């Protein structure tokens, strides 16, 4: 059962081949067996999962089942879940039990999905390797010495290891696409505003966007359809109807124009990764797509702009973790300043602290214009680059990450090198565009992801392009041997 996709599970449940309770038990057993080596879950909600599964079975008996009813899912531990610890991968929230559900959680619950637990992640979603988590690193199912990517590393690893058929993630600079690539699965970051941010703990509000992980584009289409939609509680959510993503999957790619930004194939891209990506492009040509070279001249500015804007927003977003109302509080504070400084110093890890300090500096009087305003100008230039290219092409394609998964500990002491692993994904967040990563091959045992970028609200097109590729190839069906 664990090797079935969500679409297959949905069909199996509908046909009565197995119950949601049986399916949920089977996956909980796998989690119990494999999580100790992967560390993909921070919290497993087994009892709640079984009771949700029984409710889903009941609902099916009453003829009220929807396609996702009874299908299990893992939630990134950044989404607030009523009555369940929501740690955000941080000591700061180690004992925080959310008093409400994120909209995404509510929506998936309403669809009848079964939450298996909360997945590991880089602390407050700041990291590209899942090594900044207070709960320890997640390991890559393809190679336990390798990182799974981040920040949604636990979700990606859980899906790759067949512990869950799907999972939620969030993507601020690549945190869905990069781990999807490094773990050999499919993940989509929707257009900014497509999925509600209510109850999703903020890292950088103007960049954060939730989205799904699954093994196939079809499964991502099913999940995104359930997650997306206008939410009056999120002022940045966009009031636009959600299309039927599944219905659009099978459209032929004949005549679809795919742009390859020359900047994404230059220095810094690992040669072996480039070969795999080029082979995938060839496959797209075979599927009828027209390949065009394009240019995104301001790409090189994406990382510096991101590392001003994201820390600036994070320095403000994380100010609420002050030890006063909830979260970690130091022992015996001697006065207010001591309460603040020790609670925060003890509650936050090194990377979070680094970004808060950088952001505080960037917003300070006298530096604001040189850093924050400048970064916003770059952001506009990057968006304009994309709009120029989308006047010519339907989809932009390139590598998701410049290398395959690196080894645990390899980049931990070198933040700049670590930041570069998001070089192809970050610009997409700065522009607010949708981006998808799908598995297109391997370098050795480690998977390679292809990133597809679309214009605003072109999720249908991205899912369609990924699905057609997956109909013609079997990379997405490969299973890490140890987790078959």
């Amino acid at each position, binding site marked *: 059962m664990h090797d079935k996709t969500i679409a297959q599970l949905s069909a199996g449940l509908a046909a009565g081949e197995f119950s949601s309770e049986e399916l949920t038990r089977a996956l909980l057993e796998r989690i119990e067996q494999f999580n100790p080596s992967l560390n993909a879950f921070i919290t497993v909600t087994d009892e709640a999962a079984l009771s949700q599964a029984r409710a889903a079975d009941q609902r099916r008996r009453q003829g009220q089942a929807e396609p996702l009813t009874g299908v299990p899912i893992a939630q990134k531990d950044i*989404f*607030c879940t009523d009555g369940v610890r*929501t740690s*955000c991968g941080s000591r700061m*929230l180690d004992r*925080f039990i*959310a*008093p*409400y559900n*994120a909209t995404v959680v509510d929506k998936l619950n309403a669809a009848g999905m079964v939450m298996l637990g909360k997945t590991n992640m880089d602390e407050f979603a700041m990291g590209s390797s899942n090594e900044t988590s207070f709960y320890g690193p997640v390991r890559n199912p393809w190679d336990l010495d390798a990182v799974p990517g981040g920040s949604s590393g636990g979700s990606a690893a859980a899906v790759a290891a067949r512990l869950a058929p799907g999972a939620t993630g969030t993507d601020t600079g690549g945190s869905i696409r990069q781990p999807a690539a490094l773990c050999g699965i499919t993940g989509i970051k929707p257009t900014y505003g497509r999925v509600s*941010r*209510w*109850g*999703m*703990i*903020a890292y*950088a*509000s*103007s960049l954060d966007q939730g989205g799904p992980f699954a093994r196939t584009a079809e499964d991502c289409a099913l999940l995104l359809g359930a997650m997306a939609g206008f939410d*009056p*509680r*999120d*002022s*940045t959510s966009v009031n636009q109807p959600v299309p039927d993503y599944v219905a659009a999957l099978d459209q032929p790619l004949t005549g679809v124009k795919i742009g390859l930004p020359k900047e994404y194939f230059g220095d810094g891209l690992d040669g072996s990764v480039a070969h795999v990506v080029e082979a995938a492009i060839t496959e797209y040509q075979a599927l009828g797509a027209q390949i065009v070279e394009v240019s995104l001249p301001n790409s090189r500015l994406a990382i510096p702009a991101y590392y001003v804007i994201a820390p*600036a*927003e994070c*320095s*403000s977003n*994380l*100010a*609420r*973790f*002050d030890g*006063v*109302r*909830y979260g970690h509080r130091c022992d015996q504070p001697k006065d*207010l300043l001591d309460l*603040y400084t020790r609670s925060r110093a003890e509650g936050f890890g090194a990377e979070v602290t680094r970004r808060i300090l950088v952001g*505080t500096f960037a*917003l*300070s*009087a006298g530096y*604001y214009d040189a850093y*924050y305003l400048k970064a916003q100008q770059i952001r506009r230039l990057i968006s304009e680059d994309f709009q120029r290219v989308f006047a010519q092409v339907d989809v932009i394609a390139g590598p998701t990450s410049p290398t395959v998964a690196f080894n645990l500990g390899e980049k931990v002491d070198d933040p700049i090198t670590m930041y570069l692993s998001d070089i192809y994904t970050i610009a997409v967040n700065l522009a607010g565009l949708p981006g998808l990563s799908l598995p297109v091959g391997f370098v050795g045992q480690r998977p390679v992801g292809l990133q597809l970028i679309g214009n605003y609200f072109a999720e249908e097109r991205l899912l369609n392009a990924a699905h057609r590729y997956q109909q013609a190839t079997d990379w997405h069906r490969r299973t890490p041997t140890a987790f078959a």
Partner: protein
Amino acid sequence: MEWETVIGLEIHAQLATSSKIFSGASTAYGAEPNTQACAIDLGMPGVLPVLNQQAVRMAAVFGLAIGAEIARRSVFARKNYFYPDLPKGYQISQYELPIVQKGQLTVDLEDGTSKVIGITRAHLEEDAGKSLHEDFQGSSGIDLNRAGTPLLEIVSEPDLRSAKEAVAYMKKLHQMVVYLGICDGNMQEGSFRCDANVSVRHQGDPKLGTRAEIKNLNSFRFVERAIEFEIERQIDLIESGGKVVQETRLYDPDKGETRSMRGKEEANDYRYFPDPDLLPLVLDEAFIAAARAGLPELPDAKKQRFIQQYGLSSYDAAVLTTSRALSDYYEATVSALGGEAKLCANWVMGDLSAFLNKENREITESPVSPVQLAGLLRRIQDRTISGKIAKDVFEALWAGEGETDAIIEKRGLKQITDSSAIEKVIAEVIAANPEQLAQYRGGKDKLFAFFVGQVMKASKGKANPQQVNDLLLEKLKE
């Protein structure tokens, strides 16, 4: 050397919305601590603000009332600082692009002149919670009921030149926001409070002196006293060779003095930046037209109308238009009576106001309605009772003893207008006071009042005063 004072006020008016500016929690005052604070007000992880449209409309109404340009696009920013009663670690406020731009307010001064005071801007922001330092044995308590309450911060130009002008401006602004129905104006509950920026300079000096900011003044009296104290302090300081430092000061009403709270060097760097959780606030022409259409008649216009329509003096018209409720009461009375605007004005400003003051009631809480008051005045008008007797009837009305006519009937207060009855009383009075009569007839005219008094007394106040006058004059001559 002559000194000139320069004052600018920042006034925080709490907007009279039923829910908070970014959450659905109630804004009602006086609830148990933390019972009116939802997840958003508590700054829980993952919560997001949604702007209250009612607050936006009220800000726009204010802007239109002071003749200001309403920004078609304004931006909410985060003002970052740590404080225990500031749950998010930042306050959402408008910084570079406020909703209300330059406007002005005409203020009437004590010497009868008026002065136009510039208003630099007014912007929307959220209030913080309250720290409670008593009753927690060495700790502090925090009440977040007030956190997220919508405020309109109204910033004046440094156009005010004395404490009295500052108070006149503040009163006018207070009247305006209450008139517009956008603020309840309750200063004790903090719904309308003021920070004053005060500096002094030599007369004629084009450069402004260094200013001190006096925080959180919540009564007109405190504003006046605090500013006066501060002016003295600054002048004394400079004249004795010292220098005013830019700082924040607090007014201590018990000691009647201001004292330093924090200096400029301790000032926060608020690290303002646009709040990414809120899109820029964009207002279209239709929204502004609707706000304009909803504007009530403003106090100055109403005062002019009262002078013209009712023939009132400028003073009476000003008093009666102090508040919308008072002017509404007055107009309802005139309308029920069908005229006699001056008589109505006298009674509303006189007996009614005196009774309200005595019992510390608002006009809206008056037990005597405009229709009831008109009923009473009608009986003065048709000479059923005298003005003097009417005061007793009013008291009975106030006490809820029934309607005017019933009270007059029950107490037998009907005025005596029958000439023969009055003549009979006059005859008795004259007969009883031969000595005074002789003196009067001997040229002591002042004694006329004595006879009037005696006749009124004998008739228990019910004789029609005009008739008493006329008849007495006649009889005394005989």
